[in-house]
């Protein structure tokens, strides 16, 4: 896709999203939540999809990002609550965490990598759970409203809404909070960043390491440095996701750090499609939307999610978007085969010309 088309279509999609989910049982607040969580899924896809590393510990970055952002407001700087500072400390701390943990975990492969990331996430869970003085234990941090977003010349209260404008079946413009616009802008930046990254040499080397690590070493790359970079970027994005979630919800509890949360990132990304830019966003959106609609009707929601997950792994290993991509590639290939090899006519002509 050309750059202009990419930015145009993505921006258009993000603008329409909160209205398009209105007639099918969604609401703009859900759109905001989806985009926030999807930032973490996109980060996770850098690991699982592009670097081939299955981390079962993303919850530690998500949860700690959320706790750090809210603690910045309520505990570290209660006299000068600042939105940007909360994000900065949340993402900054998680990034340092990711560098330190990443330096240790990238030495391992496959199941050992998955289990070591799981072990670290469990450590952070229990530290947050038991450190009541700082984290309030299992009560979590509650009712910490985010300060207005200062832009230098003015500041915006993100909980404010757009002016009223009736949009018929698509709800009302005033249903949408400024939060959505802010998060959509960040999503656009995250997508642009990830797209640049996976198209760069960095992305290609990562793919080479995933496919054959030994060979990539022979060619002269240091796989651990690339994997550490991927782990750190994924951690930072997941931390950003957690920080935004905490600020948006005005609360966070230890369940953000459970194995279940790590598993959610896995489920979203795999269902949407690993190794695709939009797959994690689509998977996160689809599952969170379905959860919202279906769990209101039946208790069996998690069962349906589990069955869907297994079905995708068995029948659509590339996920929803991955299978689209493969089908398209196959159509192009089929067309090429139907057209025949390019030199076929000339060879036939040569045979006819021969005596």
């Amino acid at each position, binding site marked *: 896709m050309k750059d202009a088309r990419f930015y145009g279509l993505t921006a258009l999609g993000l603008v329409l999203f909160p209205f398009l989910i209105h007639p099918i049982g969604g609401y703009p607040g859900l759109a905001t939540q989806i985009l926030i969580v999807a930032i973490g899924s996109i980060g996770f896809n850098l690991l699982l999809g592009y670097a081939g590393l299955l981390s079962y510990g993303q919850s530690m970055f998500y949860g700690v990002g959320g706790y750090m952002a809210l603690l910045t407001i309520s505990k570290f700087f209660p006299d000068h609550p600042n939105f940007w500072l909360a994000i900065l400390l949340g993402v900054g701390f998680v990034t340092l965490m990711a560098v330190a943990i990443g330096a240790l975990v990238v030495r391992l492969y496959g*199941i050992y990598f998955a289990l070591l990331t799981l072990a670290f996430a469990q450590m952070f869970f229990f530290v947050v759970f038991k450190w009541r003085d700082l984290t309030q234990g299992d009560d979590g941090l509650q009712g910490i409203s985010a300060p207005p977003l200062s832009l230098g010349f003015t500041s915006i209260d993100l909980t404010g809404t757009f002016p009223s404008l009736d949009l018929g079946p698509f709800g009302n413009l005033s249903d949408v909070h400024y939060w959505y616009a802010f998060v959509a802008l960040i999503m656009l930046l995250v997508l642009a960043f990830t797209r640049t990254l996976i198209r760069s040499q960095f992305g290609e080397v990562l793919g080479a390491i995933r496919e054959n690590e030994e060979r990539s070493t022979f060619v002269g790359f240091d796989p651990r440095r690339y994997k550490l970079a991927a782990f750190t970027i994924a951690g930072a994005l997941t931390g950003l996701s957690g920080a935004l979630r905490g600020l948006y919800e005005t609360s966070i509890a230890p369940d953000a750090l459970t194995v279940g949360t790590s598993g959610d990132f896995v489920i979203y990304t795999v269902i949407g499609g690993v190794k695709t830019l939009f797959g994690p966003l689509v998977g996160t959106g689809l599952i969170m939307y379905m959860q919202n609609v279906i769990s209101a009707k039946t208790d069996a929601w998690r069962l349906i999610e589990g069955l869907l997950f297994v079905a995708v792994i068995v029948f659509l290993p590339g996920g929803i978007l991955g299978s689209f991509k493969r089908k398209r590639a196959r159509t192009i290939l089929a067309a090429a085969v139907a057209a025949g090899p390019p030199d076929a006519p000339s060879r036939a002509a040569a045979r006819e010309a021969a005596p």
Partner: protein
Amino acid sequence: MAQLPGQLLDGFIRGLVYVAIALGLTIVFGMLRLVNFSHGAFYAIGAYVGLVVAQRYGLVAGLIAAPIAVAVFAVVFDRVLLRRFYDKEPTAQILVTFGVAIVVEESLRLYFGGTTRTFPIPDSLSASVNLGFTQYPAYRLALAAGIMLLVLAVWLFIERTDYGLIVRAGVRDRTMVQLLGGNVKQASTVIFALGAALAGLVGAAASPIYSVDPGTGFSFLVPSFVVVVIGGLGSFWGAVLGGLIVGELQSVTTLVFPAASDVVIYIAMALVLLVRPSGLLGESEVIRG
């Protein structure tokens, strides 16, 4: 420190439960290079089947029904789904077994409700025994003895039977065993069912001590990973040693520094993975994939 002997005994018994769960996990990994995230689900299914049968026909019937039901489930799961993933990369195996674990947990939640169930202890075992240093529940001692016998039986099965021979050889070199005509596929189904039945039996047998809820599977699965990693993935005696270490580590830390009692086993696991990924008793092969 007066509670120390009692705590050590608690840790020993909890450790034995971990051993029984981890054995299935480690044997299946050793043989199939398969990491089974749904192994905890076997424990949970065993616990619920045991509960239902025991309430109607008594504890012994429950202890017989649980492993059989779980073994049947495991064989179907293996034949229908898991077999397709034997030759896939480990991440795909982790994902599919993780998915099945969710499906099992949620099915149990739908059918039995989310509440915690407790298992009745039969009158004959509800007394406590004077061990000199402490009064100790008779059921726990019976459980400990039962698990030790089980471990011995599994060890004999692997060491002394033809299936065991194929299993042990399959751990070393699967392709060679196949070339020599050993039926690795059939043996691996038997081993898979055996490991599952073991987890199911312990699920039923341990539930009078540790209560049962739909999340039980995951809450025993994660420590079981710690156990097999510390002992060495694929190692029989590694699982035994790892289980006892984890059980005692939890118990002793509860006494000395309660706040760290949960976190300590993950620190131990991370240390082992970083210093000696093949575990205490695992063979130090190249840890890849």
